[in-house]
């Protein structure tokens, strides 16, 4: 366990409202712009925790239908990510958080689904930040979250989201010396294609609660410097996870690295390659998605047996 967690968590009374968090974040950004204040180049210590979180069954069903998950009573790993997301955001929204929350780019995500979680379960969700580091085009950090069965120490889900504050360079944090190498990509034969309408961003916002303006419509996206709205990274990754299907079993690790954003509307080509062991048991499924017209890679990742 990290050093930060030795501190007692700050217990929030309820799952914070993401829309309030985004508003506050916008206000914070404006204030920093006006005051030109440079906060301390270090992450807040300590974690935030919300206890006894319950799942809304109607929201779960909508999520499962939208993402193509089987509508079972087990929470999809991406749904738990969405459940934990406001708690994570509340950490990034603290006054002592050194980076602007709005406009941060999701670089990659790692999830460990350690046990199946039924919707009837009551959950404790804790989130904190780690690994503030230089990136060739800004500053990156990890946001960690873990979900436990309420009142127990049993961790059922763990997630690490790596974000980049583009163009933000903090004093005392150096850029990495080795620039990340752009790997060349030749699109494979697709196993599927997604037709994503303009409303995909709004629909995922509806089931995940993540109303980040860059996903909602062209107007709100333009306000944040994007030519058009883009699909949520976790929407894309969660659809890939759903496409991997029942082979993944109840416990698995799920990874995704994001590259070119998916501007909406879009046609996304996808390949899922499954590997089985000698005994025929599923071992992992690797996925990659790209723009079939330009051949640019949107994201890639894997789901691996635990």
């Amino acid at each position: 366990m990290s050093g930060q967690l030795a501190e007692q968590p700050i217990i929030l009374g309820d799952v914070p409202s993401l829309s309030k968090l985004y508003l506050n974040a916008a206000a914070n950004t404006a204030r920093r712009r006006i005051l030109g204040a440079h906060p301390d180049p270090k992450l807040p210590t300590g974690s935030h925790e919300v206890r006894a979180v319950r799942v809304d069954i109607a929201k779960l069903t909508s999520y499962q239908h939208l993402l193509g998950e089987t509508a079972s009573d087990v929470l999809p790993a991406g749904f738990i990510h969405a459940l934990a997301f406001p708690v994570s955001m509340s950490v990034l929204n603290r006054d002592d958080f050194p980076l602007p929350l709005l406009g941060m780019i999701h670089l990659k995500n790692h999830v460990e689904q350690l046990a199946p979680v039924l919707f009837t379960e009551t959950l404790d969700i804790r989130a904190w930040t780690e690994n503030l580091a230089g990136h060739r085009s800004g500053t990156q950090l990890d946001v960690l979250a873990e979900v436990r069965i309420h009142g127990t120490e049993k961790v059922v889900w763990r997630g690490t989201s790596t974000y980049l504050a583009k163009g933000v360079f903090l004093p005392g944090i150096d850029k990495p010396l080795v620039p990340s190498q752009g790997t060349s990509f030749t699109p494979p034969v697709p196993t599927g294609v997604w037709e994503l309408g303009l409303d995909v961003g709004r629909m995922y916002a509806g089931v995940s609660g993540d109303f980040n303006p860059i996903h909602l419509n062209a107007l709100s996206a333009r306000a944040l410097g994007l030519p058009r709205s883009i699909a949520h990274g976790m929407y894309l990754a969660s659809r890939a996870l759903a496409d991997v299907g029942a082979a993944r079993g109840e416990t698995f690790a799920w990874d995704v690295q994001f590259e070119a954003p998916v501007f909406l509307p879009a046609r996304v080509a996808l390949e899922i390659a499954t590997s089985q062991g000698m005994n025929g048991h599923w071992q992992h499924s690797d996925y990659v998605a790209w723009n079939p017209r330009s051949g640019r890679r949107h994201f890639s990742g894997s789901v691996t047996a635990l």
Partner: protein
Amino acid sequence: MPAAEQPESAANQVSGQSLAASVSERSLRKAVVVGGNRIPFARAGGAYAKSSNKDMLTAALDGLIARFGLQDERIGEVAAGAVLKHSRDFNLTREAVLGSALSPETPAYDLQQACATGMEAVLGLANKIKLGQIDSAIAGGVDTASDAPIAVSEGLREVLLDLNRARTVPERLRILARLRPKDLAPDAPTTGEPRTGLSMGEHQALTTAQWKITRGAQDELALDSHRNLAAAYDRGFFDDLMTPYRGLQRDANLRPDTSLEKLAALKPVFGKSLRAEATMTAGNSTPLTDGAATVLLASEEWAEARGLPKLATIVDGEAAAVDFVHGKDGLLMAPVFAVPRLLGRLGLTLDDIDFFEIHEAFAGTVLSTLAAWEDDKFGRTRLGLGGAFGKVDRSRLNVNGSSLAAGHPFAATGGRIVATLAKMLHDSGTVDGRPARGLVSVCAAGGQGVVAVLEAN
């Protein structure tokens, strides 16, 4: 009580013996094809643009009734289906029976296995006849791409359903306020596979490229289909297999005068985003089609008692499915696995078959199937054989044309093929001193396939 201790079960049925034992000792009898009837297939938006599934199925059924004198006859069971079906047509087949000249006491049920619907109807009913549950049956299928069901959007549907459940006016207003302009856009059916988002043509394009099937080979197969079907019409082969409907006498898709040059001039429509050359055109792919087909099946006794023909016996059938979702196998390749299993069970090889009816979903489907059977490695690693499964003698393949020329109203294709093959088998009678044998192979959406062996009677 175990069956083995009751040797005279048939004579003993009432004396306290297990009913299950007496039924299980009944010997299987033959199920034969008496004949078939279909309406000519129309191109979507053509002669049957305003005809519903029920209209067409009833028309095909009425022709069958007229041909075999089945007016007021109580048939054991009628089974048919449609792939594109309105929700109001939940009892499509029973409604068609009620609208036909059959006895209204004829039971009927709907079934659906995508493009294999007609084949599954034939096999299921033949099994009931074999078991002695029924003496006669009509299998069929119908589809319309013209009169396809169009659903309201999910948004509008949810609002309408919630509205229906609402109790108060304010509640209703709140629900109505959820409506958005986009909710008014209708939701039309597509040929896309739900799990991959790829259309059937795009799936086949992957398989066609994988088996390196050339454009020329596909166009040749399409040309053969048109020539063979045209020749069969010219010699009157379909005269007792078809009833004209809505002014159509022949399948509207048939192009007797097509040529390799004309086919070669068509632009590819599928597989254009693959690195391999795009080879699939509107000429070597089946068009969207409207039509219906029926087949009359019976026990030998039932046919003999009415002086009706016994064209062929339904010997055996097999269904298979492939794991196509992540590309382990091609979407339409299930028959590649079903046929070796079926022939293996019957102790036959491809060389023992006199007529092959391989449904031409796309020319590439047929040619990929043949290529997989001829492939040594595929035979060893995927089919579990000592080597390649075998080679289909092309002179025995789809000799009276198939779906590329006739068209393919999804659920009607099985009935078309079974009736056509039964007549061909009956016409050729014996081959090498044994009854002529035919193999039917139909691929279907969802990575499925149904195949069957028929024998001349």
